[in-house]
């Protein structure tokens, strides 16, 4: 199991015995309001998923992450985690202040303000998203963010239970769990979809040479037409129950916003899985991409720039059902041509499912289909 990123797991959670005191103190402090996505980011910092960060980025780290894809201490880090505030709020903040952070009117953390600084959104988008096109969802979000960023250290005294509390584990818990299971090597699999046969094939191929599989669906804001979170969970439950050996795979949810930053986000996703304790991370074609902003394998190629990442990527290129081989294959092992290959077409499967029909069993397990069709509205509307 790799060490946490940066050497140790960060823990910025208030000790249980101090929670009531912090709630009382926070009620008397000036407050910064944040949305749910930012709250989740701050929770991820507090529980150590974003180790070695101990709060939203300060200027040196921000500049270094944007320019070099590394924190100022040279540790790999590609997605800036920032707290943005309006000019008006910024004027009321002094460096050295302690402020409360609230979401929906409820304070949940305190921040020791280390510094506040302005940022160049266009340069940021170009570096992080490789585009300034306002059609890109990450660029869109950046454009409406506030003009001032506040960096410092946080302490979190109220954690949300999570959308699926039964599947939400902290990294110290997953590390303990891997140890309990005797898993020295673990492959992390990121997903935003219900599994088709191609996904299962990739997971099992990885599992053939590691001790355990860590299936880690991203839960949170999604695009219209995506599978709903509950459908993703229940379809994975069906797949694991029916098609995996007992104790070979575990399902844990990750609440985190998708940025669609392609290659940069692939590195971020790998770091988070390293903090969970994974030794390997599966990276497919166009990982974390959107539209045609990134090359199909850019999210794999970027790993060449990070030999010091501390988690090994497992790359998959194209996988498909081959009629001649009689099962799922990939382009490294199947000698047959396009005429024998049928790609796993998520869009076609979604269309069939939306009509209440079963995709072909060579494309999706019937048990998985059943789990999806149990829901009247399996897609985000």
């Amino acid at each position, binding site marked *: 199991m*790799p060490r946490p990123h940066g050497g140790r*797991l960060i823990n910025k959670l208030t000790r249980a015995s101090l929670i009531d005191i912090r709630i009382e103190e926070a009620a008397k402090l000036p407050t910064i309001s944040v949305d749910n996505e930012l709250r989740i980011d701050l929770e991820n910092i507090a529980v150590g998923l974003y180790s070695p960060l101990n709060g939203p980025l300060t200027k040196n780290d921000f500049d270094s992450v944007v320019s070099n894809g590394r924190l100022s201490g040279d540790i790999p880090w590609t997605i800036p985690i920032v707290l943005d505030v309006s000019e008006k709020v910024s004027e009321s903040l002094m460096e050295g202040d302690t402020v409360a952070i609230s979401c929906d009117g409820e304070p949940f953390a305190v921040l020791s303000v280390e510094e506040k600084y302005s940022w160049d959104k266009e340069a940021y988008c170009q570096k992080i998203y490789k585009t300034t096109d306002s059609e890109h969802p990450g660029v869109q979000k950046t454009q409406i963010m506030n003009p001032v960023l506040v960096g410092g250290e946080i302490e979190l005294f109220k954690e949300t239970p999570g959308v699926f509390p039964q599947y939400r584990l902290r990294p110290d818990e997953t590390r*303990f769990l891997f140890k*309990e299971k005797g898993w020295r090597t673990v492959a992390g699999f990121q997903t935003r979809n219900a599994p088709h046969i191609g996904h299962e094939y990739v997971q099992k191929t990885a599992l053939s040479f590691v001790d355990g599989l860590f299936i880690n669906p991203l839960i949170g804001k999604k695009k219209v037409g995506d599978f709903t979170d509950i459908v993703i969970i229940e379809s994975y439950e069906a797949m694991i129950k029916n098609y995996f050996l007992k104790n070979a795979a575990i399902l844990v949810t990750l609440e985190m916003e998708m940025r669609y930053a392609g290659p940069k986000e692939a590195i971020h996703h790998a770091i988070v899985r390293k903090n969970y304790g994974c030794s390997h991370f599966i990276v497919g074609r166009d990982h974390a991409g959107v539209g045609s902003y990134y090359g199909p394998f850019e999210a794999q190629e970027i790993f060449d720039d990070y030999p*010091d990442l501390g988690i090994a990527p497992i790359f998959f290129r194209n996988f498909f059902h081959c009629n001649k081989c009689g099962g799922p294959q990939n382009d490294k092992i199947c000698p047959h041509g396009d005429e024998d290959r049928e790609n796993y077409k998520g869009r076609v499967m979604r269309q069939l499912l939306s009509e209440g029909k079963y995709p072909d069993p060579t494309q999706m397990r019937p048990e998985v289909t059943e789990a999806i069709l149990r829901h009247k509205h399996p897609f985000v509307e």
Partner: protein
Amino acid sequence: MGEEKVSVMISKELVEKVEEKIAGTSITSVEEYIELLLENEFPEETEYTAEEEELIRERLRRLGYIE
């Protein structure tokens, strides 16, 4: 890992390859790179206090991750 260091001989060719690989990264020496690889191979165990261990074990049991 302990602080006492010992020397290990590896081929010059490999050293040159490592130097090329780590150029421009946070790793400042071949020794550091090799230590990083080996630490991942033989990691230090995360230490939990007895109380933390019991809390985590109980939660994982309750959630059905362990029996």
